[in-house]
């Protein structure tokens, strides 16, 4: 049986200008051009996009879910980074 072994690509679609590209899914393709063609046929059959990015999945560097707690812990106790941390006296406006 012939096997494809085509690499996996991740597909990102900009649904309309003004919005950022968003992950739509993934697909297999022999090369970058084919990945773009397949992305169009697979993920934009109903005008879901005005722009497509494809990137080989193995080129993506991702954080490790097992390390999530440690990775994001430094931000956890810095509540003073949020505006709601500060008490505004009555009568003060436009702040």
């Amino acid at each position: 049986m012939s096997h494809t072994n085509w690499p996996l690509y991740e597909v990102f679609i900009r649904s309309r200008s003004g919005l950022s590209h968003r992950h739509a899914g993934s697909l297999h393709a022999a090369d970058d051009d084919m990945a773009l063609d397949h992305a169009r046929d697979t993920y934009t059959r109903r005008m879901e996009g005005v722009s497509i990015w494809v990137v080989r999945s193995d080129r993506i560097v991702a954080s490790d879910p097992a390390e999530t707690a440690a990775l994001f812990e430094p931000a956890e106790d810095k509540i003073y980074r949020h505006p709601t941390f500060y008490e505004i006296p009555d009568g003060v406006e436009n702040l």
Partner: protein
Amino acid sequence: MYTQGLDQQGKPEQEKQRRPAESEAELRAFQRRCDAEEKIEAKDWMPEAYRRTLVRQISQHAHSEIIGMQPEGNWLTRAPSLKRKVILLAKVQDEAGHGLYLYSAAETLGVSRDKMVDDLLSGKAKYSSIFNYATLTWADIGAIGWLVDGAAIMNQVPLCRCSYGPYARAMVRVCKEESFHQRQGFDIMHVLCSGSEAQKAMAQDALNRWWWPSLMMFGPSDKDSEHSAQSMAWKIKRFSNDELRQKFVDATVPQAEFLGLRVPDDDLHFNEATGHYEFGDIDWQEFYDVLAGNGPCNRERLAKRQKAHDDGAWVREAARAYAAKHAVQEAA
């Protein structure tokens, strides 16, 4: 198009004991995440049995979409008008797309596309029993859209809230496209039922042949569905097979009445007290026979898929050779 309650078809040898590495604490923590309606993502820790259940269900679902192109593809060249032909082409293309979304979702669980394709072609993997029935007339295309896609929607809408993120996201996309499928099917039936006596008879004949297989799509009755409880606890499944089947019957019978068609079930009646339709017994032997490979078209479906796979081999080879050649040129 559809996955049915096939998850109970898992072979015993697949039900290996859980990895020794899975501690009670890990399993409890995982269940807490499910109970809290947290989504599980691809790289998150999950019980091996959860992964296996999902691989089986999602790949069966993907195979169903791919095989499901065949009964409808049978009428592409014989659609009664150019309009019907382009609509059917779009629908069959959607089924291919649904198969691809689902294969991708399954791959996030660590199973390769090639392995899934091999399992389909070797007959090891199952697909929905409904696609082993023949499409004898144009009205069958109407009945498939109306009933088979209608049943699929009943099952798939709750899957949009499945605990496994990649599957849930794929289902959102599928469901958006599925309602076009159901409506185009009903439209075909409606036009036939507004036509000549012969056309209406053709629609009735299609309903007669597709009604019971459509009810079987929801899988065995709850009392015979072994794995349902675990899938419910893991929030993979939200409603039982029988609950979904009842919803489908309640939604569909009034549509048949609107069309002026008779549902082929002498026991069918509306229960005023419960507000539900009660229907006759399903022939489960037929369901198991079809699943076991002895339906009207099982061999034909797999043979055709195998041929398409083989006929496409040179294209895959050529694409790979082209990509390799250009990779070398770019590097130079």
